């Protein structure tokens, strides 16, 4: 291999050949469909990743128990990215070059998604990002089934403000998710006649919030909204409660509970926090109850189930349905089948692919944490991803490859 003329076209045409070349001695099970995942099963984001990995394995075993996909078994190749963004590109490259997978599911933090999205696009390997995020990514090679700000924050903000007051303080994780989400929150606060009186960003390893809690008190907001992420940021909620602030200023979050934080915190620490997600374990639907039973059969109890584990599970089934409809695992065939407005019903209700954005239309529930549970206060059914729809149209512009950010 000498210097290649055009790297992209080269990769596309020889990805399969390279993979085979690199591991000459190993015979492959030609008939298995190969699914790759990259998830943080260890490190400070393991609270997100481990249940997602469990959900992934559950979904794969469900499909294999039912005879596989297109009469072929599904083989899962998963890598633990150890909460290290640099490992994402490494393992993504390995998945496409060496393991030669048919699809990649995974990525948790938006940073990890952006680290691998281009690699997978270049390699023409279909990518599913199954986690709630800040919205706006427009890429025909990728599908998104997590809630975006227009689905989540747009309803959470007015609801939380109506239960507290118009002066809002925002505390966000300092990376693309937190930065962009904070700007959406600012917009919705203003749209609802409120005022953002303060905004702070915290790197993901900050765990001492003492000075911040004092600062918030000098501003005395009516409401704090905290899109904080990861194990270190969990201490904010602890310290907030330890200072007795939870009795004084109501708190809402777009992320709290996604990693089952409400189960790690004591009831006293967590009670009253307001959130909005696509899923709650407390949803009493036949599909959710059946799902929980299967989960219990596999893992003993439902402790680990959380929002993004379920969306990961749903994302995998969305892809599986796309493969069934397409009758092949070929990337273009699957994309076309998916763009046909394909939908799947599961533990979190109905999910329908929006062909224009490759995002999904889904249910959103406004919830309040009560005794380590998320009690549903209000359900809003089938909300489309209007934020991304406003900027992204893959039907007209299939080569688009940008993440649009909210201008404010």
């Amino acid at each position: 291999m000498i210097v290649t003329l055009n790297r992209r076209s080269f990769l596309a045409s020889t990805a399969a050949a390279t993979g085979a070349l690199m591991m000459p001695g190993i015979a492959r099970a030609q008939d298995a469909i190969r699914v790759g995942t990259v998830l943080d099963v260890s490190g400070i984001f393991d609270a997100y990743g481990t249940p997602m990995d469990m959900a992934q394995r559950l979904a794969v075993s469900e499909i294999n128990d039912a005879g596989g996909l297109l009469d072929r078994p599904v083989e899962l190749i998963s890598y633990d990215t150890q909460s290290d963004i640099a490992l994402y590109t490494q393992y993504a490259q390995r998945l496409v070059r060496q393991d030669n997978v048919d699809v990649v599911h995974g990525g948790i933090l938006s940073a990890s998604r952006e680290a691998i999205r281009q690699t997978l696009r270049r390699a023409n390997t279909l990518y599913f990002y199954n986690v709630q995020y800040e919205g706006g990514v427009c890429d025909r090679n990728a599908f998104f089934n997590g809630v975006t700000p227009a689905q989540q924050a747009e309803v959470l903000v007015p609801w939380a403000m109506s239960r507290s007051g118009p002066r809002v303080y925002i505390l966000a994780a300092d990376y693309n998710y937190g930065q962009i989400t904070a700007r959406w929150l600012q917009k919705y606060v203003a749209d609802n006649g409120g005022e953002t009186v303060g905004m702070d960003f915290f790197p993901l390893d900050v765990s001492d919030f003492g000075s911040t809690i004092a600062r918030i008190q000098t501003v005395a907001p009516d409401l704090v909204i905290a899109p904080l992420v990861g194990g270190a940021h969990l201490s904010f909620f602890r310290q907030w409660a330890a200072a007795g602030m939870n009795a004084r200023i109501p708190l809402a979050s777009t992320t709290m509970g996604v990693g089952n934080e409400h189960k790690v915190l004591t009831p006293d620490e967590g009670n009253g926090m307001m959130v909005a997600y696509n899923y709650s374990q407390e949803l009493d639907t036949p599909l959710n109850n059946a799902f929980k039973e299967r989960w219990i059969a596999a893992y003993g109890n439902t402790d680990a189930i959380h929002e993004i584990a379920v969306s990961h599970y749903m994302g995998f089934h969305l892809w599986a349905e796309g493969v069934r409809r397409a009758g092949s695992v070929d990337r273009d065939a699957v994309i076309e089948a998916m763009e046909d407005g394909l939908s799947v019903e599961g533990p979190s209700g109905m999910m329908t692919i929006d062909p224009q954005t490759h995002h999904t239309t889904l249910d959103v529930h406004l919830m309040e944490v009560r005794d380590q549970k998320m009690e549903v206060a209000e359900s809003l059914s089938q909300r489309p991803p209007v934020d991304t729809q406003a900027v992204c149209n893959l039907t007209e512009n299939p080569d688009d490859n940008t993440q649009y950010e909210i201008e404010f």
Partner: protein
Amino acid sequence: MVRCCLKEAKRMDLAVVILVEVLYAIAWLVLVSAGLAVVFGMMKVINLAHGEFMVLGGYATITAVGLGVNIFVAMLIVAPLVVGLFGLIVERLVFRHLYGRMIDTMLASWGLSLMMIGAFKMIFGNTTTGVSGPIPGFTVGNYQINGYNFFIIVVALLLLVAMLAVLRGTRAGLVARGAMQRPDMASAMGHSPDRIYMLTFAIGSALSGLAGAVLAPLIGLVPTAGAGFIAKAFITVIAGGPSLVAGLASASGVFGLVNQFFSFLVSPVVGEVALLVAAVALLRLLPRGITTRFFRGRL
């Protein structure tokens, strides 16, 4: 009229809150650095596994609490004992073969730190654990403060006083002071340096364990949490210079003040960077530490 005074009162409250936060930051640095300072002061050895010793203290506390031990007993007694004992074993196994080889000792302790992180991951899982603070919130006028901050401040203060008392008032302290000034002095006085080093290391480890234990309720404990402690402890001890207690207190004072000032004014990240910049500036100006210029000859 009433309004102005309310504002005045609120400002007073805020001053109290900030004062408590600053004292807390200083106390935090004192606690985090104490174990390292003892080992460095006596043996001129930088124990780079210090952060992991602290994490071990944290895990010891959490495990003990999980077994039903009272949290204060777990923090103040169980954790220092466990970590002190661990330090003793490690000193016998590894470090005593390396005395006089300063850089090698540092590297071995670094290796130990990596091993401990690995062991934590295998034993406790690469995940975040924690306990909730045992002290309720505290009201100052219009403000709420984390009551646990006071506990940290008191522990740090008691620790400094205890160190001073031991160094000043006991025979062991006398020997220790001798050893700090001239390493050969202690042996001349008829004390085996081997034993002194062993005990110093064990005591330093116990202090690390104590620090990790009392800080555990404030943070989410992960196997790699030690890295966050060692750098600041390292900086504080070196910047403090040769006098144990005075160096610890003065360096912690300067850095805690700088850190909290900027944290409060801008953000915690800027506070931390300000601390680091202050450290570089301080070492450039006083390359042998604060206590070579001020507080000379004190403890």
